[in-house]
């Protein structure tokens, strides 16, 4: 719509209740910048948020939005986009929402490849319930419900995505505002399911996967010779468990979104005042 949309137009007048220093502030700012940079405005944007600290994002942003049931944000986003492909759909949630209770939907949303973006605020902890292990918590990470650590390896969501036929996989870090916004913008621009896992540290309950840890560990893919169109290179980087990368790991430039392959042409919202023309043919089929 209007080209003079600023990223602050996507901000609501509700003040976030996230803890001071929470990674989600940075994650949200990047999302707003990406939406503004790609020429969207609040009236054509639909945000779907999951449950958890991250899920509150729908309240703090200004757009059409739904904050739904724990783990089901992706199906809602798919429904919105299928019914009106003209809308910009962005789904956001946390690691628990996306990789635990919603893991089944994640796999299928990836392979369905509807044109939308999925930004996961991965803090490797359950924050809103005050500090239990999440599916991305380290195997030995001690919490109130796992005093000796979860004793199971963390989920590798990027590997899950790759195995499920992803057309866009990226890793970002909320603290690096510039790069984070760029990466989310690429996900928005991608023709298909743009998946961004964002390291979004929890300053209250996670004293292992901290800002300092990520700052030290992270390698920017832009400073390497990584070729995101090469699936094998992406696979190798994704499976390197001791390394943290930032940037677009994989992108299939030939991706065609599901709704396009299915022949959805426009908004389904407008319907005639009575039965559609030709409806009587449906009856005649039963002769």
């Amino acid at each position: 719509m209007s080209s003079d949309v600023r990223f602050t137009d996507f901000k609501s007048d509700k003040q976030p209740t996230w803890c001071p220093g929470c990674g989600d502030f940075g994650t949200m700012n990047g999302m707003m910048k990406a939406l503004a940079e790609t020429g969207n405005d609040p009236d054509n944007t639909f945000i779907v948020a999951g449950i958890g600290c991250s899920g509150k994002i729908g309240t703090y942003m200004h757009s059409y939005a739904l904050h739904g049931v724990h783990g089901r944000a992706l199906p809602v986003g798919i429904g919105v986009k299928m019914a009106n492909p003209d809308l910009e759909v962005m789904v956001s949630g946390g690691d628990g929402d996306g990789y635990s209770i919603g893991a089944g939907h994640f796999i299928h949303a990836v392979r369905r490849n509807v044109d939308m973006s999925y930004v996961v605020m991965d803090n490797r902890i359950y924050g809103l319930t005050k500090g239990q292990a999440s599916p991305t918590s380290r195997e030995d990470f001690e919490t109130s419900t796992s005093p000796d650590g979860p004793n199971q390896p963390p989920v590798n969501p990027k590997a899950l995505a790759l195995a499920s036929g992803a057309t866009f996989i990226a890793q970002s870090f909320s603290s690096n505002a510039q790069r984070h916004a760029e990466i989310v913008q690429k996900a928005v621009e991608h023709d298909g399911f743009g998946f961004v896992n964002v390291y979004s540290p929890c300053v209250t309950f996670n004293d292992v996967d901290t800002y300092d840890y990520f700052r030290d560990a992270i390698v920017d893919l832009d400073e390497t010779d990584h070729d995101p169109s090469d699936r094998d290179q992406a696979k190798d980087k994704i499976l390197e468990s001791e390394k943290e990368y930032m940037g677009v790991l994989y992108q299939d430039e030939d991706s065609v979104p599901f709704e396009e392959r299915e022949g959805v042409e426009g908004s389904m919202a407008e319907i005639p005042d009575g039965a559609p023309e030709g409806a009587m043919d449906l009856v005649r089929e039963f002769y």
Partner: protein
Amino acid sequence: MRVVRARAVTEGFSYHAGYPRDIMPEDLNWAIGGEAGDGIDSTGKIFAQALSRAGRHVFTSKDFASRIRGGYTAYKVRTSVDRVESVVDRLDILIALTERTIHENEDELHEDSVIIYDGERSTMQDVEVPGDATALEVPLKRLAEDAGGAIMLNVVALGAACEVTGFPIENLDESLEKRFGDKGEAIVENNKEAARKGQHYVQEEYGEFDYDMETTDEDYVLLNGDEAIGMGAIAAGCRFYAGYPITPATDVMEYMTGRVDQFGGKVVQAEDELSAINMALGAARAGARAMTATSGPGIDLMTETFGLVATSETPLVICDVMRSGPSTGMPTKQEQGDLNMTLYGGHGEIPRFVVAPTTVSECFWKTVEAFNLAEKYQTPVFLVSDLAMAVTEQTFSPETFDMDEVEIDRGKVVDENEIDTWLDEKGRFQAHFAAADGVSPRAFPGTTDGAHMTTGLEHDELGRRTEDTDVRIEQVDKRQRKVETAREQEDFDYREFGDPDADTLVISWGSNEGALREGLTLLEEDGYDVRFLSVPYIFPRPDLSEEIEAAEDVIVVECNATGQFADVIEHDVLERVQRINKYNGVRFKADELATEIKQTLDTPAEATQ
């Protein structure tokens, strides 16, 4: 007045114990049975279509199991020149491809029954035909091979059945063309030939039979309840359907697949029912008329999202085609066991509508109505059907589904021009505005200045989360007011049959209407006068207090063990208690309760209603 529930019908009703055949002389009951994989369904459907095109009414049913091969399965057709609304336990013509088919139907056979089977088949050589029924050995396989292939043996049997029933075989030809047309002219001709071989064999070997099926000039359409729901959805402007395959609701999805595309819509097969209902919810938020359909186990999963649909005030049609529960239950058997689930399923309290069509044609009209209710009141609407209607193919004149009669009411949708009225002083759209009638304005995404959020958390008029006790009460009351508004504006009435002045009142819901209507005719002949109310609206539902008061005996009939509808009917006529309710999120306090009880006692009862 006490409501009497129907006594438990435990034994399979049998013809021998019930009514003699001559009380319904006009109808003919026909069946083909064999193993799953024998083409029973398609053969039965060919015959049913032939009858329908010949101007006879048809009411079909299926005996089937949850398996693809083996076991026992049958397709049954009841047909008459007059309308037929039910199955009966009587078989006149039985095509038995297996010996088990005969045993399964033993109780329904009588002295004039004719059993057609292939006595040359090794498994059918020692078949004993029960009672005085006529055994008609026809070498189905051999004759089919003569006509071009053993695969057509079912069609040979159809030809034989035409001869036995006096049904002109030409009527079969059109059905065969419809079924086999896409396989080429030669196949169609071979099948016609196969049918005639069966016909001639019976003519030559057995002579004439007493049956004589008249034909008329009428031309009927033949469809089942799931198809009627799917067609109703498309007629009502449904453009998005998400579902997960489950018996007996899959036919709704299969019907809409491909067809809704012709009207700009889409069916998506979700990874599970949790996803299906959320996809449909998303599409509805985007402004599409959206729907999902499932059966018991799927409804269990979808329950998670009922509350969100209601509190986000999203119009959504959720169809439950009931089957026998609990758990996986009996997937291919009938039950009306989900009434409580659709009425009460989900934690917390939400406004919802529950509509249960009572006939196959009503499956169409109630679906149209469900979409209008959903959008007018921005609530979930449960469309409750059942297996009996899902598998019944019934004839109707095409005008029964007159598309010109379909009305669309989208409720309070606001566009760019009207949106200013619904913005608050800061220019924010009030998607949950606490309107006097409980219904807020609705702006489709893309509408300028309409951006707003909504959430399953309690929220304010802007859709933003809140725990403010006053706002909580305002929003609960606002949502609940929609039910009262609907009671005032809609006509949630029952359908009445039988003798309006009878002392005996029978009440039922859902698919039992047809069987009860025909049952009433039988009772009338035996001197029993009955008034019958068939209730398609479960919530909000008609107030039956006066009707119950006026009757001496009230019997509630339903296909379940505990009498779920009887419970709500009894509840409706109970003496009223006074109520103290609190729902602002704060627990009861001692001094507060003492005051509330005192105030309640000091207030005349009528005033608190």
